[in-house]
Protein backbone atom coordinates (compact mmCIF):
# COMPACT_ATOMS: atom_id res chain seq x y z
CA UNK A 1 0.00 0.00 0.00
CA UNK A 2 1.73 3.20 -1.12
CA UNK A 3 -0.52 5.45 0.96
CA UNK A 4 -1.42 4.91 4.58
CA UNK A 5 -4.52 5.99 6.45
CA UNK A 6 -2.87 9.06 7.92
CA UNK A 7 -1.78 10.30 4.53
CA UNK A 8 -5.23 9.78 3.08
CA UNK A 9 -6.75 11.59 6.05
CA UNK A 10 -4.37 14.50 5.54
CA UNK A 11 -5.27 14.70 1.85
CA UNK A 12 -8.97 14.57 2.69
CA UNK A 13 -8.53 17.51 5.07
CA UNK A 14 -6.57 19.48 2.50
CA UNK A 15 -9.29 18.77 -0.08
CA UNK A 16 -12.09 19.42 2.44
CA UNK A 17 -13.77 16.08 1.89
CA UNK A 18 -15.52 14.13 4.62
CA UNK A 19 -15.31 10.45 3.87
CA UNK A 20 -17.82 8.17 5.49
CA UNK A 21 -16.26 5.43 7.63
CA UNK A 22 -17.27 2.73 5.17
CA UNK A 23 -15.76 4.78 2.32
CA UNK A 24 -12.45 5.30 3.99
CA UNK A 25 -10.84 1.88 3.71
CA UNK A 26 -11.80 1.58 0.06
CA UNK A 27 -10.43 5.03 -0.64
CA UNK A 28 -7.06 4.17 0.90
CA UNK A 29 -6.92 1.04 -1.22
CA UNK A 30 -7.96 2.64 -4.50
CA UNK A 31 -5.87 5.75 -4.08
CA UNK A 32 -2.86 3.57 -3.38
CA UNK A 33 -3.45 1.66 -6.57
CA UNK A 34 -3.75 4.88 -8.53
CA UNK A 35 -0.55 6.23 -7.02
CA UNK A 36 1.25 2.96 -7.77
CA UNK A 37 -0.03 3.17 -11.32
CA UNK A 38 1.15 6.72 -11.94
CA UNK A 39 4.48 5.92 -10.30
CA UNK A 40 5.59 4.45 -13.64
CA UNK A 41 6.13 8.06 -14.79
CA UNK A 42 9.31 7.89 -12.76
CA UNK A 43 10.89 5.73 -15.47
CA UNK A 44 10.60 8.39 -18.13
CA UNK A 45 13.77 10.24 -19.05
CA UNK A 46 12.79 13.88 -18.81
CA UNK A 47 16.04 15.76 -18.24
CA UNK A 48 15.81 19.19 -19.88
CA UNK A 49 12.26 18.57 -21.08
CA UNK A 50 10.17 21.74 -20.86
CA UNK A 51 7.01 21.03 -18.85
CA UNK A 52 3.87 21.40 -20.95
CA UNK A 53 1.02 23.27 -19.32
CA UNK A 54 -1.04 23.95 -22.45
CA UNK A 55 -1.70 21.91 -25.54
CA UNK A 56 -1.16 24.91 -27.80
CA UNK A 57 1.76 27.27 -27.78
CA UNK A 58 -0.27 30.48 -27.68
CA UNK A 59 -0.10 33.69 -25.68
CA UNK A 60 -2.77 35.15 -23.43
CA UNK A 61 -5.15 37.51 -25.17
CA UNK A 62 -5.97 40.70 -23.30
CA UNK A 63 -9.35 42.23 -22.64
CA UNK A 64 -10.05 45.95 -22.93
CA UNK A 65 -10.59 47.52 -19.51
CA UNK A 66 -14.33 48.12 -19.68
CA UNK A 67 -17.18 47.46 -17.30
CA UNK A 68 -19.43 45.03 -19.14
CA UNK A 69 -21.30 43.43 -16.25
CA UNK A 70 -24.27 44.90 -14.46
CA UNK A 71 -25.81 43.89 -11.16
CA UNK A 72 -27.83 40.70 -11.28
CA UNK A 73 -27.36 39.70 -7.68
CA UNK A 74 -30.94 38.70 -7.01
CA UNK A 75 -31.14 36.33 -9.97
CA UNK A 76 -27.74 34.84 -9.16
CA UNK A 77 -28.57 34.36 -5.49
CA UNK A 78 -31.54 32.17 -6.32
CA UNK A 79 -28.98 29.37 -6.35
CA UNK A 80 -27.54 30.35 -2.97
CA UNK A 81 -28.41 28.04 -0.08
CA UNK A 82 -28.30 30.78 2.56
CA UNK A 83 -28.23 34.57 2.11
CA UNK A 84 -29.15 37.55 4.26
CA UNK A 85 -29.18 41.16 3.09
CA UNK A 86 -27.36 40.13 -0.04
CA UNK A 87 -24.56 38.43 1.91
CA UNK A 88 -23.71 34.75 1.55
CA UNK A 89 -23.80 33.19 4.98
CA UNK A 90 -21.28 30.77 6.44
CA UNK A 91 -20.77 29.60 10.02
CA UNK A 92 -19.04 32.32 12.03
CA UNK A 93 -15.44 32.82 11.00
CA UNK A 94 -13.11 33.91 13.78
CA UNK A 95 -9.87 35.60 12.82
Amino acid at each position, binding site marked *: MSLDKDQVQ*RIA*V*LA*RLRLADDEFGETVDKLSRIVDFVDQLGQAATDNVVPM*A*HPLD*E*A*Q*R*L*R*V*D*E*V*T*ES*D*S*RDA*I*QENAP*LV*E*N*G*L*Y*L*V*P*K*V*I*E
Partner: protein
Amino acid sequence: MSSSWEVVIGLEVHAQLATRSKIFSGASTAYGAEPNTQACLVDLGYPGVLPVLNEEVVRMATKFGLAVNATIARRSVFARKNYFYPDLPKGYQISQYELPIVEHGELFIIDADGNDKRIGITRAHLEEDAGKSIHEGLAKSSGIDLNRAGTPLLEIVSEPDLRSAKEAVAYMRKIHALVRYLGISDGNMQEGSFRCDANVSVRPRGQEELGTRSELKNLNSFRFVEKAINFEIERQIELIEDGGEVVQETRLYDSDKDETRSMRSKEEANDYRYFPDPDLLPVEIDAAFVDAVRETLPELPDAKQQRFIKEYGLRVDDADILTNSRALADYFEAVVAATQGKTQGVANFVIGDLLGALNRDGFDIEQSPVTASDLAGLLDRIKDNTISGKIAKEVFDAMWAGEGTADDIIEARGLRQITDSSAIESVIDQVIAANPGQVAEYKAGKDKLIGFFVGQVMKETGGKANPGQVNKILKEKLS
Protein backbone atom coordinates in the same frame (compact mmCIF):
# COMPACT_ATOMS: atom_id res chain seq x y z
CA MET B 1 16.06 48.40 21.91
CA SER B 2 19.27 46.57 22.43
CA SER B 3 21.86 47.56 19.88
CA SER B 4 23.38 44.11 19.85
CA TRP B 5 20.48 43.04 17.63
CA GLU B 6 20.05 43.73 13.98
CA VAL B 7 16.55 44.03 12.60
CA VAL B 8 15.75 42.60 9.18
CA ILE B 9 12.50 43.58 7.46
CA GLY B 10 11.03 42.83 4.08
CA LEU B 11 7.73 44.29 2.94
CA GLU B 12 5.04 42.92 0.68
CA VAL B 13 3.01 45.88 -0.46
CA HIS B 14 -0.37 45.26 -2.05
CA ALA B 15 -1.44 48.09 -4.31
CA GLN B 16 -4.90 47.92 -5.80
CA LEU B 17 -4.64 48.87 -9.46
CA ALA B 18 -6.90 51.70 -10.56
CA THR B 19 -8.72 49.93 -13.37
CA ARG B 20 -12.35 50.36 -14.24
CA SER B 21 -13.09 46.64 -14.39
CA LYS B 22 -11.69 43.67 -12.51
CA ILE B 23 -8.57 41.76 -13.40
CA PHE B 24 -10.40 38.80 -14.97
CA SER B 25 -13.96 40.02 -15.44
CA GLY B 26 -15.98 42.97 -16.68
CA ALA B 27 -17.44 43.79 -13.25
CA SER B 28 -16.88 47.26 -11.84
CA THR B 29 -14.17 47.89 -9.25
CA ALA B 30 -15.93 50.94 -7.79
CA TYR B 31 -15.74 51.05 -4.00
CA GLY B 32 -18.68 51.00 -1.64
CA ALA B 33 -21.46 49.28 -3.60
CA GLU B 34 -24.18 47.21 -1.94
CA PRO B 35 -22.89 43.71 -1.04
CA ASN B 36 -22.42 41.37 -3.98
CA THR B 37 -23.84 43.76 -6.57
CA GLN B 38 -20.46 44.05 -8.22
CA ALA B 39 -19.64 40.37 -8.12
CA CYS B 40 -20.35 38.84 -11.51
CA LEU B 41 -20.35 35.14 -12.36
CA VAL B 42 -16.58 35.09 -12.92
CA ASP B 43 -15.90 36.81 -9.59
CA LEU B 44 -18.27 34.39 -7.87
CA GLY B 45 -16.51 31.36 -9.32
CA TYR B 46 -19.66 30.06 -10.99
CA PRO B 47 -19.45 26.70 -12.73
CA GLY B 48 -18.23 26.98 -16.32
CA VAL B 49 -17.06 30.58 -16.35
CA LEU B 50 -13.52 31.54 -17.32
CA PRO B 51 -11.10 34.38 -16.61
CA VAL B 52 -9.95 36.80 -19.31
CA LEU B 53 -7.07 39.11 -18.43
CA ASN B 54 -7.56 42.89 -18.35
CA GLU B 55 -4.91 44.53 -20.55
CA GLU B 56 -4.73 47.58 -18.34
CA VAL B 57 -3.26 45.61 -15.44
CA VAL B 58 -0.44 44.42 -17.68
CA ARG B 59 0.24 47.99 -18.73
CA MET B 60 0.18 49.21 -15.13
CA ALA B 61 2.50 46.49 -13.87
CA THR B 62 4.89 47.27 -16.71
CA LYS B 63 4.77 50.95 -15.81
CA PHE B 64 5.66 50.14 -12.24
CA GLY B 65 8.46 47.83 -13.34
CA LEU B 66 10.01 50.50 -15.53
CA ALA B 67 9.72 53.08 -12.74
CA VAL B 68 11.74 50.90 -10.35
CA ASN B 69 14.30 50.01 -12.97
CA ALA B 70 13.22 46.38 -13.02
CA THR B 71 13.19 43.63 -15.60
CA ILE B 72 9.86 43.24 -17.38
CA ALA B 73 9.32 39.55 -18.05
CA ARG B 74 8.78 38.78 -21.70
CA ARG B 75 6.72 35.87 -20.57
CA SER B 76 4.92 35.63 -17.26
CA VAL B 77 2.56 32.98 -16.00
CA PHE B 78 -0.52 32.99 -13.80
CA ALA B 79 -0.76 30.25 -11.21
CA ARG B 80 -3.40 29.07 -8.83
CA LYS B 81 -2.85 29.30 -5.09
CA ASN B 82 -5.22 26.74 -3.62
CA TYR B 83 -6.87 27.10 -0.23
CA PHE B 84 -10.36 27.14 1.15
CA TYR B 85 -11.74 30.30 2.67
CA PRO B 86 -15.18 31.87 2.37
CA ASP B 87 -13.87 35.10 0.86
CA LEU B 88 -12.11 33.09 -1.87
CA PRO B 89 -14.96 31.90 -4.11
CA LYS B 90 -13.09 29.54 -6.42
CA GLY B 91 -11.09 27.87 -3.68
CA TYR B 92 -7.98 29.29 -5.30
CA GLN B 93 -6.52 32.70 -5.88
CA ILE B 94 -5.14 33.48 -9.31
CA SER B 95 -1.71 34.94 -8.74
CA GLN B 96 1.75 34.73 -10.24
CA TYR B 97 4.24 32.39 -8.69
CA GLU B 98 7.28 31.17 -10.59
CA LEU B 99 7.28 33.69 -13.42
CA PRO B 100 6.09 37.12 -12.21
CA ILE B 101 5.72 40.05 -14.57
CA VAL B 102 8.29 42.27 -12.79
CA GLU B 103 11.60 41.24 -11.23
CA HIS B 104 14.85 42.73 -9.94
CA GLY B 105 13.86 46.32 -9.27
CA GLU B 106 15.12 48.89 -6.80
CA LEU B 107 14.36 52.18 -5.20
CA PHE B 108 16.16 54.52 -2.85
CA ILE B 109 15.18 55.79 0.56
CA ILE B 110 17.01 58.17 2.88
CA ASP B 111 18.35 56.32 5.90
CA ALA B 112 18.80 57.57 9.47
CA ASP B 113 22.17 59.14 8.57
CA GLY B 114 20.63 61.08 5.72
CA ASN B 115 22.25 58.94 3.05
CA ASP B 116 20.62 57.31 0.07
CA LYS B 117 19.96 53.65 0.69
CA ARG B 118 19.09 51.17 -2.02
CA ILE B 119 16.20 48.82 -1.32
CA GLY B 120 15.93 45.88 -3.67
CA ILE B 121 12.57 44.94 -5.12
CA THR B 122 12.59 41.19 -5.57
CA ARG B 123 9.47 41.07 -7.70
CA ALA B 124 6.07 42.54 -8.37
CA HIS B 125 3.30 40.26 -9.49
CA LEU B 126 -0.32 40.53 -10.51
CA GLU B 127 -3.07 38.81 -8.58
CA GLU B 128 -6.74 39.03 -7.74
CA ASP B 129 -8.01 40.30 -4.41
CA ALA B 130 -10.37 38.26 -2.24
CA GLY B 131 -13.79 39.29 -0.95
CA LYS B 132 -14.69 40.40 2.53
CA SER B 133 -16.12 38.58 5.53
CA ILE B 134 -18.54 40.62 7.61
CA HIS B 135 -19.10 39.62 11.22
CA GLU B 136 -21.06 42.53 12.66
CA GLY B 137 -24.80 42.23 13.00
CA LEU B 138 -24.96 38.50 12.36
CA ALA B 139 -25.47 36.18 15.27
CA LYS B 140 -23.93 32.82 14.46
CA SER B 141 -22.83 33.53 10.93
CA SER B 142 -20.37 35.52 8.96
CA GLY B 143 -21.61 37.22 5.80
CA ILE B 144 -19.60 37.16 2.61
CA ASP B 145 -19.44 40.14 0.28
CA LEU B 146 -17.58 39.34 -2.92
CA ASN B 147 -17.59 42.82 -4.48
CA ARG B 148 -13.86 43.10 -3.90
CA ALA B 149 -13.17 39.60 -5.23
CA GLY B 150 -11.25 39.88 -8.48
CA THR B 151 -10.05 43.43 -7.92
CA PRO B 152 -6.57 43.68 -9.45
CA LEU B 153 -3.61 43.87 -7.10
CA LEU B 154 0.05 44.43 -7.71
CA GLU B 155 2.01 42.73 -4.95
CA ILE B 156 5.39 44.38 -4.59
CA VAL B 157 7.90 42.31 -2.66
CA SER B 158 11.04 43.93 -1.29
CA GLU B 159 14.32 42.30 -0.49
CA PRO B 160 14.96 41.97 3.27
CA ASP B 161 16.98 45.20 3.02
CA LEU B 162 15.10 47.29 5.57
CA ARG B 163 16.76 47.65 8.96
CA SER B 164 14.22 49.53 11.07
CA ALA B 165 10.55 50.36 11.29
CA LYS B 166 11.43 53.87 10.15
CA GLU B 167 13.10 52.56 7.02
CA ALA B 168 10.13 50.33 6.38
CA VAL B 169 7.81 53.31 6.57
CA ALA B 170 10.10 55.39 4.35
CA TYR B 171 10.09 52.61 1.79
CA MET B 172 6.34 52.18 1.97
CA ARG B 173 5.82 55.94 1.56
CA LYS B 174 8.08 55.89 -1.42
CA ILE B 175 6.11 53.09 -3.06
CA HIS B 176 2.90 54.89 -2.16
CA ALA B 177 4.07 58.10 -3.81
CA LEU B 178 5.31 56.17 -6.81
CA VAL B 179 2.12 54.25 -7.57
CA ARG B 180 0.13 57.45 -7.30
CA TYR B 181 2.60 59.28 -9.54
CA LEU B 182 2.24 56.55 -12.10
CA GLY B 183 -1.53 56.77 -11.83
CA ILE B 184 -1.75 53.02 -11.33
CA SER B 185 -3.30 53.10 -7.84
CA ASP B 186 -5.25 55.64 -5.85
CA GLY B 187 -3.30 54.49 -2.77
CA ASN B 188 -6.36 54.94 -0.60
CA MET B 189 -5.47 53.22 2.63
CA GLN B 190 -8.85 53.62 4.35
CA GLU B 191 -10.48 51.70 1.53
CA GLY B 192 -7.76 49.07 1.60
CA SER B 193 -6.36 50.00 -1.80
CA PHE B 194 -2.87 50.13 -0.37
CA ARG B 195 -1.77 47.83 2.42
CA CYS B 196 1.19 45.74 3.35
CA ASP B 197 2.47 42.67 5.12
CA ALA B 198 5.81 42.86 6.89
CA ASN B 199 8.27 40.02 7.38
CA VAL B 200 10.22 40.82 10.51
CA SER B 201 13.16 39.02 12.09
CA VAL B 202 16.08 39.87 14.31
CA ARG B 203 19.60 38.46 14.47
CA PRO B 204 22.65 39.14 16.58
CA ARG B 205 24.62 41.93 14.95
CA GLY B 206 27.30 40.48 12.72
CA GLN B 207 25.50 37.21 12.15
CA GLU B 208 25.11 36.31 8.50
CA GLU B 209 22.22 33.92 8.81
CA LEU B 210 18.72 35.38 9.05
CA GLY B 211 16.65 34.86 12.16
CA THR B 212 13.24 33.18 12.06
CA ARG B 213 10.70 35.66 10.78
CA SER B 214 7.12 36.36 11.55
CA GLU B 215 4.74 37.80 9.02
CA LEU B 216 2.61 40.74 10.12
CA LYS B 217 -0.59 40.86 8.10
CA ASN B 218 -2.70 43.62 6.63
CA LEU B 219 -1.06 46.77 7.89
CA ASN B 220 -3.13 49.54 6.38
CA SER B 221 -1.55 52.76 7.61
CA PHE B 222 1.98 54.10 7.82
CA ARG B 223 1.55 54.58 11.54
CA PHE B 224 0.46 50.99 12.07
CA VAL B 225 3.36 49.69 10.02
CA GLU B 226 5.78 51.50 12.29
CA LYS B 227 4.04 50.56 15.52
CA ALA B 228 3.46 46.94 14.57
CA ILE B 229 7.06 46.42 13.47
CA ASN B 230 8.44 48.09 16.59
CA PHE B 231 6.21 45.98 18.78
CA GLU B 232 7.25 42.87 16.94
CA ILE B 233 10.96 43.68 17.16
CA GLU B 234 10.69 44.16 20.92
CA ARG B 235 8.69 41.00 21.27
CA GLN B 236 11.19 38.90 19.35
CA ILE B 237 14.22 40.30 21.16
CA GLU B 238 12.62 39.81 24.55
CA LEU B 239 11.61 36.31 23.60
CA ILE B 240 15.12 35.35 22.50
CA GLU B 241 16.82 37.07 25.42
CA ASP B 242 14.55 35.13 27.75
CA GLY B 243 15.80 31.93 26.17
CA GLY B 244 12.82 31.40 23.89
CA GLU B 245 12.63 30.90 20.16
CA VAL B 246 10.77 32.82 17.49
CA VAL B 247 8.40 30.59 15.56
CA GLN B 248 7.62 31.24 11.93
CA GLU B 249 4.00 32.34 11.91
CA THR B 250 1.52 34.89 10.72
CA ARG B 251 0.63 37.59 13.22
CA LEU B 252 -2.08 40.16 13.20
CA TYR B 253 -1.54 43.70 14.46
CA ASP B 254 -4.24 44.90 16.82
CA SER B 255 -4.18 48.67 16.64
CA ASP B 256 -6.46 49.08 19.67
CA LYS B 257 -4.09 47.24 21.94
CA ASP B 258 -0.94 48.14 19.99
CA GLU B 259 0.27 44.56 19.90
CA THR B 260 0.67 41.70 17.47
CA ARG B 261 -0.87 38.35 18.12
CA SER B 262 -0.59 34.97 16.52
CA MET B 263 -3.23 34.25 13.90
CA ARG B 264 -4.58 30.77 13.85
CA SER B 265 -3.34 29.47 10.56
CA LYS B 266 -5.98 29.54 7.82
CA GLU B 267 -5.08 26.04 6.81
CA GLU B 268 -3.61 23.76 9.45
CA ALA B 269 -0.59 23.05 7.34
CA ASN B 270 -0.37 25.66 4.62
CA ASP B 271 0.05 23.78 1.40
CA TYR B 272 -1.07 26.03 -1.40
CA ARG B 273 -0.44 23.56 -4.19
CA TYR B 274 0.55 26.25 -6.69
CA PHE B 275 0.36 25.20 -10.32
CA PRO B 276 0.03 27.09 -13.62
CA ASP B 277 -3.58 28.15 -14.21
CA PRO B 278 -4.75 26.12 -17.21
CA ASP B 279 -7.51 28.66 -17.95
CA LEU B 280 -4.97 31.37 -18.72
CA LEU B 281 -2.17 31.32 -21.25
CA PRO B 282 1.28 32.79 -20.68
CA VAL B 283 1.33 36.60 -20.88
CA GLU B 284 3.77 37.67 -23.55
CA ILE B 285 5.08 41.21 -23.64
CA ASP B 286 7.17 42.42 -26.54
CA ALA B 287 9.66 45.26 -26.73
CA ALA B 288 7.22 47.47 -28.61
CA PHE B 289 4.71 47.21 -25.78
CA VAL B 290 7.36 48.05 -23.20
CA ASP B 291 8.57 51.00 -25.28
CA ALA B 292 5.04 52.32 -25.66
CA VAL B 293 4.54 52.14 -21.91
CA ARG B 294 7.88 53.83 -21.33
CA GLU B 295 6.65 56.75 -23.44
CA THR B 296 3.81 57.28 -21.00
CA LEU B 297 5.97 57.41 -17.88
CA PRO B 298 5.66 60.70 -16.05
CA GLU B 299 8.60 62.43 -14.36
CA LEU B 300 9.21 60.27 -11.28
CA PRO B 301 9.47 61.55 -7.70
CA ASP B 302 13.26 61.34 -7.37
CA ALA B 303 13.88 63.09 -10.67
CA LYS B 304 11.32 65.73 -9.88
CA GLN B 305 12.87 66.36 -6.48
CA GLN B 306 16.30 66.84 -8.04
CA ARG B 307 14.84 69.20 -10.60
CA PHE B 308 13.04 71.24 -7.94
CA ILE B 309 16.28 71.65 -6.03
CA LYS B 310 18.16 72.68 -9.15
CA GLU B 311 15.54 74.68 -10.95
CA TYR B 312 13.88 76.43 -8.04
CA GLY B 313 16.75 76.45 -5.56
CA LEU B 314 14.64 74.68 -2.96
CA ARG B 315 16.00 73.03 0.15
CA VAL B 316 16.12 69.22 0.03
CA ASP B 317 13.43 68.76 2.67
CA ASP B 318 11.09 71.26 0.99
CA ALA B 319 11.62 69.60 -2.38
CA ASP B 320 10.93 66.25 -0.75
CA ILE B 321 7.60 67.41 0.65
CA LEU B 322 6.53 69.17 -2.54
CA THR B 323 7.26 66.15 -4.72
CA ASN B 324 5.51 63.72 -2.40
CA SER B 325 2.54 63.65 -4.69
CA ARG B 326 2.36 64.49 -8.33
CA ALA B 327 -0.71 66.64 -7.75
CA LEU B 328 1.05 68.71 -5.07
CA ALA B 329 4.12 69.15 -7.25
CA ASP B 330 1.93 70.19 -10.15
CA TYR B 331 0.12 72.65 -7.89
CA PHE B 332 3.38 74.12 -6.71
CA GLU B 333 4.68 74.53 -10.23
CA ALA B 334 1.42 76.09 -11.36
CA VAL B 335 1.67 78.69 -8.60
CA VAL B 336 5.31 79.39 -9.43
CA ALA B 337 4.44 79.88 -13.07
CA ALA B 338 1.59 82.26 -12.31
CA THR B 339 3.05 84.48 -9.63
CA GLN B 340 5.60 87.24 -9.61
CA GLY B 341 6.48 86.16 -6.08
CA LYS B 342 9.68 84.44 -5.04
CA THR B 343 9.87 80.70 -5.44
CA GLN B 344 10.96 80.05 -1.85
CA GLY B 345 8.02 82.18 -0.75
CA VAL B 346 5.69 79.96 -2.79
CA ALA B 347 7.23 76.86 -1.21
CA ASN B 348 6.85 78.28 2.27
CA PHE B 349 3.24 79.22 1.70
CA VAL B 350 2.31 75.91 0.10
CA ILE B 351 4.05 73.79 2.74
CA GLY B 352 3.06 75.93 5.73
CA ASP B 353 -0.35 77.37 5.04
CA LEU B 354 -1.85 75.30 2.28
CA LEU B 355 -0.79 71.84 3.51
CA GLY B 356 -1.76 72.89 7.04
CA ALA B 357 -5.24 73.76 5.92
CA LEU B 358 -5.56 70.60 3.82
CA ASN B 359 -4.51 68.42 6.75
CA ARG B 360 -6.78 70.27 9.14
CA ASP B 361 -9.82 69.72 6.91
CA GLY B 362 -8.81 66.28 5.64
CA PHE B 363 -8.68 67.32 1.98
CA ASP B 364 -6.49 66.07 -0.81
CA ILE B 365 -4.66 68.66 -2.83
CA GLU B 366 -7.11 68.02 -5.66
CA GLN B 367 -9.92 69.15 -3.38
CA SER B 368 -8.24 72.38 -2.27
CA PRO B 369 -10.77 75.24 -2.26
CA VAL B 370 -7.93 77.60 -3.17
CA THR B 371 -6.70 76.93 -6.68
CA ALA B 372 -3.13 77.41 -7.80
CA SER B 373 -3.98 80.55 -9.76
CA ASP B 374 -5.90 81.98 -6.79
CA LEU B 375 -2.91 81.37 -4.57
CA ALA B 376 -0.63 82.96 -7.15
CA GLY B 377 -2.92 86.02 -7.06
CA LEU B 378 -2.50 86.23 -3.31
CA LEU B 379 1.27 85.93 -3.46
CA ASP B 380 1.38 88.65 -6.09
CA ARG B 381 -0.20 91.00 -3.61
CA ILE B 382 2.59 90.30 -1.15
CA LYS B 383 5.14 90.84 -3.85
CA ASP B 384 3.69 94.20 -4.91
CA ASN B 385 3.36 95.29 -1.29
CA THR B 386 -0.40 95.51 -1.38
CA ILE B 387 -0.47 93.37 1.75
CA SER B 388 2.06 92.02 4.20
CA GLY B 389 2.87 88.36 4.69
CA LYS B 390 0.94 88.45 7.90
CA ILE B 391 -2.19 89.91 6.38
CA ALA B 392 -1.80 87.35 3.60
CA LYS B 393 -2.58 84.58 6.09
CA GLU B 394 -5.86 86.27 6.97
CA VAL B 395 -6.68 86.68 3.30
CA PHE B 396 -5.82 83.02 2.67
CA ASP B 397 -8.18 81.88 5.41
CA ALA B 398 -10.95 83.93 3.85
CA MET B 399 -10.18 82.48 0.41
CA TRP B 400 -10.27 79.00 1.94
CA ALA B 401 -13.70 79.83 3.36
CA GLY B 402 -14.87 80.73 -0.12
CA GLU B 403 -15.09 84.51 0.22
CA GLY B 404 -13.55 85.15 -3.16
CA THR B 405 -10.20 85.99 -4.71
CA ALA B 406 -7.39 87.71 -2.83
CA ASP B 407 -8.21 91.03 -4.47
CA ASP B 408 -11.91 90.77 -3.58
CA ILE B 409 -11.10 90.07 0.02
CA ILE B 410 -8.41 92.76 0.35
CA GLU B 411 -10.87 95.24 -1.09
CA ALA B 412 -13.88 94.11 0.92
CA ARG B 413 -12.04 94.03 4.22
CA GLY B 414 -9.94 97.09 3.54
CA LEU B 415 -6.70 95.25 4.08
CA ARG B 416 -4.65 97.21 1.63
CA GLN B 417 -1.26 97.96 3.15
CA ILE B 418 -0.46 101.47 4.22
CA THR B 419 2.56 102.57 2.19
CA ASP B 420 2.00 106.28 2.47
CA SER B 421 5.06 107.46 4.49
CA SER B 422 3.33 110.44 5.99
CA ALA B 423 0.49 108.28 7.29
CA ILE B 424 2.97 105.83 8.80
CA GLU B 425 5.01 108.68 10.27
CA SER B 426 2.02 110.09 12.08
CA VAL B 427 1.23 106.74 13.68
CA ILE B 428 4.88 106.35 14.68
CA ASP B 429 4.87 109.78 16.24
CA GLN B 430 1.84 108.80 18.33
CA VAL B 431 3.50 105.59 19.47
CA ILE B 432 6.73 107.39 20.45
CA ALA B 433 4.77 109.99 22.35
CA ALA B 434 2.75 107.35 24.20
CA ASN B 435 5.77 105.29 25.33
CA PRO B 436 8.46 107.59 26.71
CA GLY B 437 9.89 104.96 29.06
CA GLN B 438 10.56 102.48 26.27
CA VAL B 439 12.02 105.23 24.12
CA ALA B 440 14.49 106.06 26.86
CA GLU B 441 15.49 102.42 27.30
CA TYR B 442 15.94 102.01 23.56
CA LYS B 443 18.11 105.03 23.36
CA ALA B 444 20.15 103.66 26.24
CA GLY B 445 21.05 100.71 24.02
CA LYS B 446 18.26 98.17 24.41
CA ASP B 447 18.00 97.58 20.63
CA LYS B 448 15.62 94.67 21.01
CA LEU B 449 12.84 97.10 21.86
CA ILE B 450 12.51 97.92 18.17
CA GLY B 451 10.20 94.90 17.97
CA PHE B 452 7.98 96.42 20.62
CA PHE B 453 7.62 99.65 18.63
CA VAL B 454 6.91 97.78 15.38
CA GLY B 455 4.26 95.79 17.20
CA GLN B 456 2.61 98.92 18.52
CA VAL B 457 2.55 100.51 15.07
CA MET B 458 1.05 97.38 13.58
CA LYS B 459 -1.55 97.26 16.30
CA GLU B 460 -2.54 100.83 15.58
CA THR B 461 -2.79 100.18 11.82
CA GLY B 462 -4.52 96.86 12.09
CA GLY B 463 -1.44 95.17 10.64
CA LYS B 464 -1.72 97.06 7.41
CA ALA B 465 1.41 99.23 7.62
CA ASN B 466 4.21 98.12 5.38
CA PRO B 467 6.66 96.47 7.81
CA GLY B 468 9.77 97.53 5.87
CA GLN B 469 8.74 101.15 5.91
CA VAL B 470 7.77 101.00 9.58
CA ASN B 471 11.19 99.65 10.50
CA LYS B 472 13.03 102.20 8.48
CA ILE B 473 11.07 105.23 9.74
CA LEU B 474 11.12 104.03 13.35
CA LYS B 475 14.89 103.70 13.33
CA GLU B 476 15.28 107.18 11.87
CA LYS B 477 12.94 108.72 14.46
CA LEU B 478 14.49 106.94 17.40
CA SER B 479 18.08 107.63 16.54
